[in-house]
């Protein structure tokens, strides 16, 4: 394996001071959702970390995940590519194309055998290999060939993690997730449509910093970001506890920023970090913009019923009862989350 410079060496060569390095470590702790007390340990680890080779494969996808990644502010995608990782193959971002691009992929696989990361966005069609090809290679063949020498695979976005929109009913291409095909390597799911940029960079940063993979939940998602529901961390939660709900998108409650539960918010059953990490460099997130959470980081979110249908439909037959129950907010939260999980379990079972 070729000798790659450490991140400390790269930053030092760029004339970054120790203060700058400490700042880098502080923001890294934030990215990894680690307490600031971990900064000294992060500093020590980063100084000696070597830039891992990364191969990014794009299959049945819309490029929204890459669009999201390029909006990462901490680190920026340029900083990530030039300082922290060696991005050796990525259709959209690389200058090379065709045979040259494929040669770069093979060279990265050979030089870093057993140690590189494979990032995949998009689902893989099994219905017909011709549904999606790259350089004449079917998605499934390219995936199997590339992951053979990988240390781990990261499924970026809900399509790669769970099948996503290509896999939605009636799934015309026979789309499957990465995890359904790769069973002999660690697979980390980073779902979302798209995922939050910082969550994507965090997984890479964790691997870079500690050489380990993050702790995962039962769906293979990093617990640091998917350990709590949107509802748990929502700034509108106090309104939920008070039973104050928007009933339509232009009513008094909507204008006052009340809870969007009755407008179909899937926050109580959706595990993601949008409510705190937010989007566009921390500017906002869907609920802050007045729209219910769609639950895009959950398996089969596209087929889980209407986006504007309250989670409690079937449990509550009138707004008054809903509001009344919500006064005892936590109880309703449990009921709503349970209803969501029931639907999800049903989907997962049938899917």
């Amino acid at each position, binding site marked *: 394996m070729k000798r790659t410079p450490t991140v400390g060496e790269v930053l030092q060569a760029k004339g970054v001071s120790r203060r700058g390095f400490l700042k*880098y470590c502080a923001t890294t702790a934030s990215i990894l959702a680690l307490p600031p007390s971990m900064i000294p340990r992060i500093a020590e680890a980063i100084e000696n970390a070597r830039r891992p080779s990364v191969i990014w494969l794009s299959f049945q996808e819309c490029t929204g995940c890459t669009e999201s990644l390029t909006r990462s*502010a901490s680190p920026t995608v340029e900083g990530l590519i030039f300082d922290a990782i060696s991005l050796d193959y990525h259709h959209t971002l690389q200058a090379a194309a065709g045979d040259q691009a494929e040669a770069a992929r093979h060279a990265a696989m050979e030089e870093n055998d057993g140690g590189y990361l494979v990032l995949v966005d998009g689902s893989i069609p099994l219905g017909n290999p011709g549904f999606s090809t790259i350089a004449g290679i079917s998605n499934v063949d390219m995936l199997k060939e590339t992951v053979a020498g990988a240390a781990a695979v990261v499924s970026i976005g809900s399509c790669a993690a769970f099948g996503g929109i290509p896999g939605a009913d009636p799934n015309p291409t026979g789309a499957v997730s990465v995890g359904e095909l790769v069973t002999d390597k660690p697979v980390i799911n980073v779902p979302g449509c798209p995922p939050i940029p910082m969550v994507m960079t965090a997984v890479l940063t964790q691997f870079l910093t500690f050489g380990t993979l993050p702790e995962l939940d039962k769906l293979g998602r990093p617990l640091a970001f998917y350990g709590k529901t949107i509802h748990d961390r929502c700034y509108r939660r106090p309104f939920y506890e008070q039973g104050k709900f928007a009933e339509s998108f232009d009513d008094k409650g909507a204008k006052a920023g009340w809870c969007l539960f009755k407008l179909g918010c899937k926050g109580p059953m959706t595990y993601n970090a949008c*409510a705190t990490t937010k989007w566009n460099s921390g500017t906002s997130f869907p609920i802050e913009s007045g729209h219910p959470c769609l639950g895009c980081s959950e398996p089969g979110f596209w087929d889980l019923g209407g986006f504007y249908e309250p989670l409690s439909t079937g449990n509550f037959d009138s707004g008054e009862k809903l509001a009344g129950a919500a006064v005892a907010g936590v109880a309703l939260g449990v009921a709503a989350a349970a209803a969501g999980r029931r639907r999800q379990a049903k989907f997962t079972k049938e899917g």
Partner: protein
Amino acid sequence: MTSLEGIQAAAFPFHGNVRPILNEVTHALDRLLETGEATVIDLAGLPFGPGELEYLEASLGTGELSATLDALGTSCIRETAFPGVWWLEHRNALDEVVGRYLEITRTPEILSSQEADIVAGRARLGDQLGN
């Protein structure tokens, strides 16, 4: 505003996410005074509604000392109106905020000259003198 007691409950508009943080700051100040232990609160991990972060910043006010760090983008390190409570804001080279912290300490570590930088600076000065 000179004391946290001066901030009344009625003065907390929005969604109620500011007061718990100020309470946490008072506990951190107690710890600093009693044991010398510093605390860092990463504001990126906490929920804020529209305007609440600005309200928190305004509630803490501005103290006597502020500094600007120019490394991998600009950082602002400012003591708030409450001595020992520092507001740190890190920006990247594109001037986007990449981290906001409250440090409850006597001096934030990032303000101190760092050993490695002192060594490098000493070597540079020696080169200039031809030593």
